[in-house]
Protein backbone atom coordinates (compact mmCIF):
# COMPACT_ATOMS: atom_id res chain seq x y z
CA UNK A 1 0.00 0.00 0.00
CA UNK A 2 1.58 3.22 -1.20
CA UNK A 3 0.24 5.44 1.61
CA UNK A 4 1.66 3.18 4.33
CA UNK A 5 5.00 3.33 2.48
CA UNK A 6 4.79 7.16 2.32
CA UNK A 7 3.92 7.37 6.02
CA UNK A 8 6.75 5.03 7.03
CA UNK A 9 9.26 6.83 4.77
CA UNK A 10 8.15 10.17 6.28
CA UNK A 11 8.48 8.91 9.86
CA UNK A 12 11.90 7.42 9.04
CA UNK A 13 13.10 10.74 7.58
CA UNK A 14 11.76 12.59 10.65
CA UNK A 15 13.64 10.25 13.01
CA UNK A 16 16.87 10.50 10.98
CA UNK A 17 16.70 14.29 10.65
CA UNK A 18 15.82 14.95 14.32
CA UNK A 19 18.67 12.67 15.45
CA UNK A 20 21.05 14.40 13.01
CA UNK A 21 20.05 17.84 14.32
CA UNK A 22 20.70 16.68 17.90
CA UNK A 23 24.09 15.25 16.88
CA UNK A 24 25.05 18.47 15.04
CA UNK A 25 24.02 20.63 18.00
CA UNK A 26 26.12 18.42 20.32
CA UNK A 27 29.01 18.77 17.83
CA UNK A 28 28.68 22.59 17.83
CA UNK A 29 28.57 22.66 21.66
CA UNK A 30 31.71 20.53 22.06
CA UNK A 31 33.69 21.85 19.11
CA UNK A 32 36.40 24.47 18.86
CA UNK A 33 35.25 27.60 17.04
CA UNK A 34 37.63 30.10 15.50
CA UNK A 35 37.56 32.92 13.00
CA UNK A 36 39.04 32.32 9.55
CA UNK A 37 40.23 35.11 7.25
CA UNK A 38 40.61 34.85 3.46
CA UNK A 39 44.37 34.95 2.83
CA UNK A 40 44.30 34.24 -0.91
CA UNK A 41 41.97 33.39 -3.80
CA UNK A 42 43.12 30.22 -5.50
CA UNK A 43 42.57 30.22 -9.27
CA UNK A 44 41.08 27.07 -10.81
CA UNK A 45 40.67 26.77 -14.56
CA UNK A 46 37.65 24.68 -15.58
CA UNK A 47 36.54 24.42 -19.22
CA UNK A 48 38.47 27.58 -20.06
CA UNK A 49 36.86 29.62 -17.23
CA UNK A 50 38.85 30.81 -14.24
CA UNK A 51 37.09 30.17 -10.93
CA UNK A 52 38.22 31.62 -7.62
CA UNK A 53 38.38 29.47 -4.49
CA UNK A 54 38.98 31.23 -1.16
CA UNK A 55 41.67 29.94 1.18
CA UNK A 56 41.07 30.82 4.84
CA UNK A 57 43.86 31.17 7.36
CA UNK A 58 43.03 30.60 11.00
CA UNK A 59 44.78 30.18 14.31
CA UNK A 60 43.78 27.15 16.40
CA UNK A 61 43.11 27.51 20.12
CA UNK A 62 46.67 26.16 20.62
CA UNK A 63 47.98 29.14 18.61
CA UNK A 64 49.02 27.13 15.56
CA UNK A 65 48.28 28.48 12.07
CA UNK A 66 46.19 26.38 9.65
CA UNK A 67 44.63 26.78 6.23
CA UNK A 68 41.11 25.84 5.20
CA UNK A 69 40.40 25.65 1.46
CA UNK A 70 36.71 26.35 0.85
CA UNK A 71 34.80 23.78 -1.22
CA UNK A 72 33.09 26.45 -3.28
CA UNK A 73 34.64 28.35 -6.13
CA UNK A 74 32.98 31.05 -8.21
CA UNK A 75 33.57 33.61 -10.94
CA UNK A 76 33.58 36.43 -10.17
CA UNK A 77 34.80 35.60 -6.70
CA UNK A 78 32.16 35.88 -3.94
CA UNK A 79 35.00 36.48 -1.46
CA UNK A 80 37.71 39.11 -1.13
CA UNK A 81 41.04 38.80 0.65
CA UNK A 82 40.47 39.78 4.29
CA UNK A 83 36.84 38.59 4.43
CA UNK A 84 36.02 36.63 7.58
CA UNK A 85 33.98 33.52 8.34
CA UNK A 86 33.60 31.46 11.54
CA UNK A 87 35.11 27.97 11.29
CA UNK A 88 34.40 24.94 13.44
CA UNK A 89 36.31 21.71 14.04
CA UNK A 90 36.27 18.74 16.44
CA UNK A 91 38.44 19.30 19.56
CA UNK A 92 42.13 18.90 18.69
CA UNK A 93 41.50 18.38 14.94
CA UNK A 94 41.88 21.78 13.24
CA UNK A 95 42.67 20.05 9.95
CA UNK A 96 38.98 19.02 9.85
CA UNK A 97 37.74 22.63 9.96
CA UNK A 98 34.61 23.58 8.05
CA UNK A 99 32.43 26.69 7.90
CA UNK A 100 30.28 27.33 10.97
CA UNK A 101 27.27 28.45 8.96
CA UNK A 102 23.70 27.22 8.78
CA UNK A 103 24.15 26.11 5.18
CA UNK A 104 27.21 23.94 5.79
CA UNK A 105 26.04 22.43 9.07
CA UNK A 106 22.27 22.06 8.86
CA UNK A 107 20.78 22.81 5.44
CA UNK A 108 20.50 19.23 4.14
CA UNK A 109 19.19 17.98 7.48
CA UNK A 110 16.43 20.62 7.49
CA UNK A 111 15.65 19.73 3.88
CA UNK A 112 15.20 16.08 4.97
CA UNK A 113 13.08 17.22 7.94
CA UNK A 114 10.79 19.21 5.61
CA UNK A 115 10.55 16.29 3.19
CA UNK A 116 9.80 13.93 6.07
CA UNK A 117 6.99 16.21 7.29
CA UNK A 118 5.50 16.47 3.78
CA UNK A 119 5.55 12.66 3.32
CA UNK A 120 4.12 12.08 6.83
CA UNK A 121 1.24 14.50 6.13
CA UNK A 122 0.51 12.81 2.79
CA UNK A 123 0.52 9.33 4.30
CA UNK A 124 -1.29 10.27 7.51
CA UNK A 125 -3.87 12.29 5.55
CA UNK A 126 -4.95 9.12 3.77
CA UNK A 127 -5.80 7.34 7.04
CA UNK A 128 -7.48 10.43 8.55
CA UNK A 129 -9.60 11.16 5.46
CA UNK A 130 -10.39 7.54 4.56
CA UNK A 131 -13.60 7.78 6.60
CA UNK A 132 -14.92 10.55 4.33
CA UNK A 133 -14.27 8.44 1.22
CA UNK A 134 -16.00 5.33 2.59
CA UNK A 135 -19.18 6.92 3.97
Amino acid at each position, binding site marked *: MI*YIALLLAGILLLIISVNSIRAKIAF*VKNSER*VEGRVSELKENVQDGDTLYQPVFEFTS*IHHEKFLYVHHESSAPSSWSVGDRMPLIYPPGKPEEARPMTYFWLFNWIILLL*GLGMALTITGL*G*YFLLLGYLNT
Partner: protein
Amino acid sequence: MFLMKFNPIFSLIAGCILLAVSLYKLKDTLEFLEKSDRAPGVVTRLEELSGGDTGTSYSPVFKIKTKDNQEFTYFHTSSTNPPSWDIGEQAMFVYDPRDPNSARMLTYFGVFSWTIVFMGFGVFLMTMAIGQYLLENYLQKRPLNS
Protein backbone atom coordinates in the same frame (compact mmCIF):
# COMPACT_ATOMS: atom_id res chain seq x y z
CA MET B 1 23.64 27.04 -4.87
CA PHE B 2 19.90 27.78 -4.92
CA LEU B 3 19.49 26.53 -1.36
CA MET B 4 22.18 28.85 -0.04
CA LYS B 5 20.14 31.82 -1.27
CA PHE B 6 16.87 30.46 0.10
CA ASN B 7 15.19 33.42 1.76
CA PRO B 8 13.54 32.27 5.02
CA ILE B 9 11.04 35.18 5.09
CA PHE B 10 9.87 34.48 1.54
CA SER B 11 9.74 30.77 2.34
CA LEU B 12 7.71 31.35 5.54
CA ILE B 13 5.19 33.63 3.79
CA ALA B 14 4.82 31.22 0.82
CA GLY B 15 4.44 28.29 3.24
CA CYS B 16 1.74 30.09 5.29
CA ILE B 17 -0.18 31.01 2.11
CA LEU B 18 -0.03 27.42 0.80
CA LEU B 19 -1.12 26.05 4.17
CA ALA B 20 -4.06 28.50 4.33
CA VAL B 21 -5.08 27.60 0.75
CA SER B 22 -4.86 23.89 1.55
CA LEU B 23 -7.05 24.26 4.66
CA TYR B 24 -9.60 26.23 2.61
CA LYS B 25 -9.52 23.52 -0.10
CA LEU B 26 -9.92 20.83 2.58
CA LYS B 27 -13.03 22.54 4.02
CA ASP B 28 -14.39 23.02 0.48
CA THR B 29 -13.80 19.35 -0.43
CA LEU B 30 -15.36 18.03 2.81
CA GLU B 31 -18.47 20.15 2.13
CA PHE B 32 -18.53 18.85 -1.46
CA LEU B 33 -18.37 15.24 -0.17
CA GLU B 34 -21.26 15.89 2.27
CA LYS B 35 -23.67 17.15 -0.38
CA SER B 36 -22.52 14.89 -3.22
CA ASP B 37 -23.89 11.67 -4.68
CA ARG B 38 -21.88 8.60 -5.54
CA ALA B 39 -22.16 6.47 -8.67
CA PRO B 40 -20.07 3.81 -10.39
CA GLY B 41 -18.43 4.55 -13.72
CA VAL B 42 -17.33 2.08 -16.39
CA VAL B 43 -14.41 2.54 -18.81
CA THR B 44 -16.03 2.63 -22.25
CA ARG B 45 -12.96 3.51 -24.30
CA LEU B 46 -9.31 4.48 -24.06
CA GLU B 47 -8.50 7.82 -25.61
CA GLU B 48 -5.19 7.89 -27.46
CA LEU B 49 -3.08 10.94 -26.78
CA SER B 50 0.01 11.49 -28.88
CA GLY B 51 2.88 13.05 -26.98
CA GLY B 52 6.23 14.13 -28.46
CA ASP B 53 9.02 11.94 -27.05
CA THR B 54 6.85 9.66 -24.92
CA GLY B 55 4.81 8.30 -27.83
CA THR B 56 1.14 7.47 -27.55
CA SER B 57 -0.44 7.32 -24.10
CA TYR B 58 -3.92 6.21 -23.11
CA SER B 59 -6.48 7.99 -20.99
CA PRO B 60 -9.64 6.16 -19.84
CA VAL B 61 -13.07 7.60 -20.63
CA PHE B 62 -15.76 6.60 -18.11
CA LYS B 63 -19.51 6.44 -18.57
CA ILE B 64 -21.22 7.29 -15.26
CA LYS B 65 -24.86 6.50 -14.57
CA THR B 66 -26.49 8.69 -11.90
CA LYS B 67 -29.23 7.60 -9.45
CA ASP B 68 -31.91 9.07 -11.72
CA ASN B 69 -30.55 7.13 -14.72
CA GLN B 70 -28.85 10.05 -16.41
CA GLU B 71 -25.57 9.23 -18.11
CA PHE B 72 -22.55 11.46 -18.39
CA THR B 73 -18.97 11.07 -19.49
CA TYR B 74 -15.86 11.58 -17.37
CA PHE B 75 -12.47 12.09 -19.05
CA HIS B 76 -9.67 11.00 -16.75
CA THR B 77 -6.91 13.59 -16.49
CA SER B 78 -3.93 11.22 -16.40
CA SER B 79 -2.73 9.12 -19.30
CA THR B 80 -0.24 6.27 -19.30
CA ASN B 81 1.55 3.92 -21.64
CA PRO B 82 0.76 1.06 -21.38
CA PRO B 83 -2.80 1.94 -20.28
CA SER B 84 -3.51 1.43 -16.56
CA TRP B 85 -7.20 0.81 -17.25
CA ASP B 86 -9.01 -1.82 -19.34
CA ILE B 87 -12.32 -1.32 -21.07
CA GLY B 88 -15.10 -2.51 -18.75
CA GLU B 89 -13.20 -1.71 -15.54
CA GLN B 90 -15.19 0.14 -12.90
CA ALA B 91 -14.43 2.95 -10.47
CA MET B 92 -16.58 4.88 -8.00
CA PHE B 93 -17.23 8.59 -8.61
CA VAL B 94 -18.54 11.41 -6.50
CA TYR B 95 -20.44 14.35 -8.02
CA ASP B 96 -22.68 17.28 -7.19
CA PRO B 97 -26.22 16.19 -8.27
CA ARG B 98 -26.86 19.71 -9.64
CA ASP B 99 -23.60 19.66 -11.63
CA PRO B 100 -22.51 16.20 -12.85
CA ASN B 101 -19.47 17.80 -14.52
CA SER B 102 -18.04 18.28 -11.03
CA ALA B 103 -17.39 14.51 -10.86
CA ARG B 104 -14.17 13.32 -9.26
CA MET B 105 -12.87 9.78 -8.95
CA LEU B 106 -13.49 8.61 -5.37
CA THR B 107 -9.89 7.97 -4.37
CA TYR B 108 -7.69 9.79 -1.89
CA PHE B 109 -5.71 11.61 -4.59
CA GLY B 110 -8.74 11.94 -6.90
CA VAL B 111 -10.63 13.91 -4.25
CA PHE B 112 -7.93 15.58 -2.12
CA SER B 113 -5.05 15.98 -4.61
CA TRP B 114 -4.56 19.78 -4.44
CA THR B 115 -5.23 19.86 -0.68
CA ILE B 116 -2.41 17.34 -0.12
CA VAL B 117 0.00 18.97 -2.57
CA PHE B 118 -0.52 22.46 -1.09
CA MET B 119 -0.38 21.23 2.51
CA GLY B 120 2.73 19.09 1.97
CA PHE B 121 4.60 21.84 0.12
CA GLY B 122 3.42 24.52 2.58
CA VAL B 123 4.64 22.55 5.60
CA PHE B 124 7.92 21.81 3.76
CA LEU B 125 8.56 25.54 3.13
CA MET B 126 7.58 26.49 6.70
CA THR B 127 9.93 23.83 8.14
CA MET B 128 12.80 25.16 6.00
CA ALA B 129 12.12 28.74 7.10
CA ILE B 130 11.63 28.09 10.82
CA GLY B 131 14.57 25.63 10.91
CA GLN B 132 16.87 28.17 9.24
CA TYR B 133 15.75 31.00 11.56
CA LEU B 134 16.19 28.96 14.77
CA LEU B 135 19.51 27.34 13.83
CA GLU B 136 21.08 30.53 12.42
CA ASN B 137 20.19 32.26 15.71
CA TYR B 138 21.66 29.33 17.64
CA LEU B 139 24.95 29.52 15.69
CA GLN B 140 25.19 33.30 16.14
CA LYS B 141 24.93 32.88 19.92
CA ARG B 142 27.86 30.43 20.11
CA PRO B 143 30.97 32.49 20.96
CA LEU B 144 34.24 31.85 19.13
CA ASN B 145 37.16 30.41 21.12
CA SER B 146 39.61 32.92 19.69
